[in-house]
């Protein structure tokens, strides 16, 4: 990794999210994310104890058993293992899009951009995916799947690309534009799949949803029962994208440029890198990851999109928004993103009403507990520079940073 140039004099550029991450990557290992997570779960447990007077440990154990992660324990009985396998398939099914939306946020982060639009890009990908996979009925399986995946990813890239383009040309802040684009996509979905909308299902005129996708575009289920939502091959696509992410960033000129721009756009500009081009491409590639997540979910287990499904995602509990937490917790590294996605996938799945034992803790409450823990993780992650300060206060990195800030 290239040694980043020191932050320039003044208060400004040293405070970007990306420069913070550059700082973390030099200063901290996996300790701070771990401490953050444990602390968030601890506070979540306190909430359970104080508000509902339930035992937090047995609650967490029930959630853990709902995730299916106990499948990895060698000592559980055969019957438990069958159930755990089923749970674990669901967990990994949720981990798959989270990896990709996490990458969508992380990739933009590396260019110094904050992509809050993962949810809209995800939705755009799934809308185009469901349209392609439910039309062109004459095509054979594999080309049809590929066409859906390519066009869906491009839709995500297009939505994010608008934000990147505006940032590159007129300097419109990407946080604002991506938030607005999210809502534009949600309401367009309402129009497209709503009553008498152009993409509404032809089966039943009162249903506000899309057509079902063609049978031969369903992704192959390699573990578990296809009827009970087993794990599909999209999981491997997500894993492959983790590698692609690493390769683009660390082994290509584009990645080098994007990282340079992320560390310090001014220095990159002096070095002859086109900052605008890097912004645009970084956002477009980020959007590709999120769009891909949308297509894979449609082809893998959703098979149909409804307006409620899409506009319900406007709530922050959805995978696109979770991608922010995944990227932040995973420190933008592929391995970190995988485990962070697994953590949130497990949390989502373990607290869903299909997998949590309602006698121990009501799932409707637990879903909100998930949101709470998610918020706490973000809160503490945002502040974990404090941890780094506390532990490394007298090391060389911090004083230099402080000195450059204080001028």
């Amino acid at each position, binding site marked *: 990794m290239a040694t980043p140039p020191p932050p320039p004099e003044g208060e400004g550029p040293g*405070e970007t999210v990306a420069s913070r991450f550059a700082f973390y990557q030099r200063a901290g290992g996996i300790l701070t994310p771990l401490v953050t997570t444990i602390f968030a779960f601890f506070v979540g447990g306190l909430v359970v104890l104080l508000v*509902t007077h339930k035992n937090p440990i047995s609650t967490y154990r029930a959630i853990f058993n709902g995730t299916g992660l106990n499948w990895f324990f060698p000592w559980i009985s055969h019957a438990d293992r069958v159930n755990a396998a089923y749970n674990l398939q669901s967990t990994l099914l949720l981990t798959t899009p989270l990896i990709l939306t996490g990458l969508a946020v992380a990739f933009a982060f590396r260019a110094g951009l904050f992509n809050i639009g993962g949810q809209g890009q995800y939705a755009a990908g799934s809308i185009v995916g469901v349209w392609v996979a439910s039309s062109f009925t004459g095509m054979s399986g594999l080309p049809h799947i590929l066409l859906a995946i390519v066009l869906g990813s491009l839709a995500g890239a297009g939505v994010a690309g608008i934000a990147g383009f505006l940032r590159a040309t007129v300097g419109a802040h990407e946080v604002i534009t991506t938030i607005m684009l999210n809502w534009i996509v949600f309401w367009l979905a309402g129009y497209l799949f709503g009553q008498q909308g152009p993409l509404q299902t032809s089966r039943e005129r009162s249903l506000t949803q899309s057509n079902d996708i063609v049978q031969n575009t369903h992704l192959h289920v390699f573990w578990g029962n296809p009827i009970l939502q087993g794990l599909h091959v999209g999981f491997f696509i997500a894993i492959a994208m983790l590698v692609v992410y690493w390769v683009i960033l660390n082994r290509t000129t584009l990645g080098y440029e994007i990282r340079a721009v992320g560390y310090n756009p001014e220095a990159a500009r002096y070095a002859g890198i086109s900052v605008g081009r890097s912004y645009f491409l970084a956002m477009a590639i980020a959007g590709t990851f999120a769009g891909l997540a949308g297509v894979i979910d449609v082809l893998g287990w959703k098979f149909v999109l409804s307006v409620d499904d899409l506009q319900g995602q406007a709530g922050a509990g959805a995978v696109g928004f979770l991608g922010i937490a995944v990227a932040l917790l995973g420190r933008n590294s592929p391995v970190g993103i995988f485990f962070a996605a697994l953590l949130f996938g497990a949390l989502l799945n373990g607290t869903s009403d299909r997998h949590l034992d309602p006698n121990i803790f009501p799932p409707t409450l637990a879903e909100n507990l998930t949101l709470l823990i998610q*918020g706490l993780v973000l809160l503490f992650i945002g502040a974990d520079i404090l941890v780094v300060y506390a532990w490394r206060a007298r090391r060389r990195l911090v004083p230099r940073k402080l000195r450059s800030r204080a001028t």
Partner: protein
Amino acid sequence: VSVYVEPVRGAATRLTQPRGVGTIGIVLGGFAAWLALPPLASRTILWPILVGILAVAAGIWSVSRGGGRAGWGAVASGLAGIALGVLATRSSVGELDTVVVWSALLASTLRYATPLTFAALGGLFSERSGVINIGLEGMMLMGSFFGIWGADKTDSWELGILIAIVSGTMLALVHAFFTIQLRADQIVIGTAINFLALGITGYLFTDIYGAQGIPTNVPEIPDVTIGWLKNVYFIGPIFGDLNLMIWLSFVLLVVSHVVLFKTPLGLRLRSVGEHPRAADTVGISVYATRYVAVALSGALAALGGAYLTLGFIHNFDQNITGGRGFIALAALIFGKWRPFGAFAAALLFGFSSALGDRLPSYFAAGSSVPQLFNVLPYVLTIVAVAGVIGRSIPPAAIGRPYVKQ
């Protein structure tokens, strides 16, 4: 409206000046009316209204950027365009009916705009002091739950509002502590605030009210009936029976404008947002100012939320705000971080919501076309932040933590 075209710089520049945009707005307003007339004779009401709204948007944009008379002209022409266009498409309907429909529509606009106005004013204080507040949505959600919960428990809507304000302020203080004291990234913390509010309100709602939902006998914020105004032609049905909170929002709007731009207090707040180091040098406490501003933003956003549940919808459901906090943020940006600009934008966005709500009867039964009206606020905001000239430029020090020397 303003297209970035390099080669024809001269003409393009003139057209993207506030006055030029205003002129474009006037032309658009005329176009809106003309769409419904014989040569094109648009069958649906959709096109005159869409074009008319664009004209009004151009007007608001132009006025808040110094376009003056041209901007006001565009607002008037846009409204007239919508009215004429609608009249022409439904010429069979009597005039009396039209007046009733229009006053109802404008009253409905005010109802939709008020939560946005409160939250946008909240965002105004926070962002003018240099702290980005993406958590407006969450603070609003807190206000909407705790408002109705408080009113239910204490059996008084006044106490409900008070509890809502306290809850919003508490959450805002969390935002303030992490962003000001710990210098965490303001956008990350804002996102966290939204998650937290969703979790807290959802958790408590499910735990306390469960499947039954909010009881129906929760006290409501009363409407203010003004007897002498009520029977006045056209204006009466709009202002004669408004909710108390709508009037409060008008008052707070004026107060905010005066405080921010006419008092030393406001000057201090703005200086902290523009150049904290300079403010610090002359003895203004940057931290204290930002704390107060962020706390205030939480209180105002929560007021908007309380109005939503206690004065408008009279119910609560998980995530009831449904993005209104983000529309408020959009209104703030579209109004260029000014109280009246934000209010005008809130009115425009409220108008498009009210239309989306009332228009379905004009389309074939159950058509999804009115959904498109909901897209407008967001598209307009993107145009506003992307505009080459007259672009929405935030306070200079926004988003940057301040380190004391």
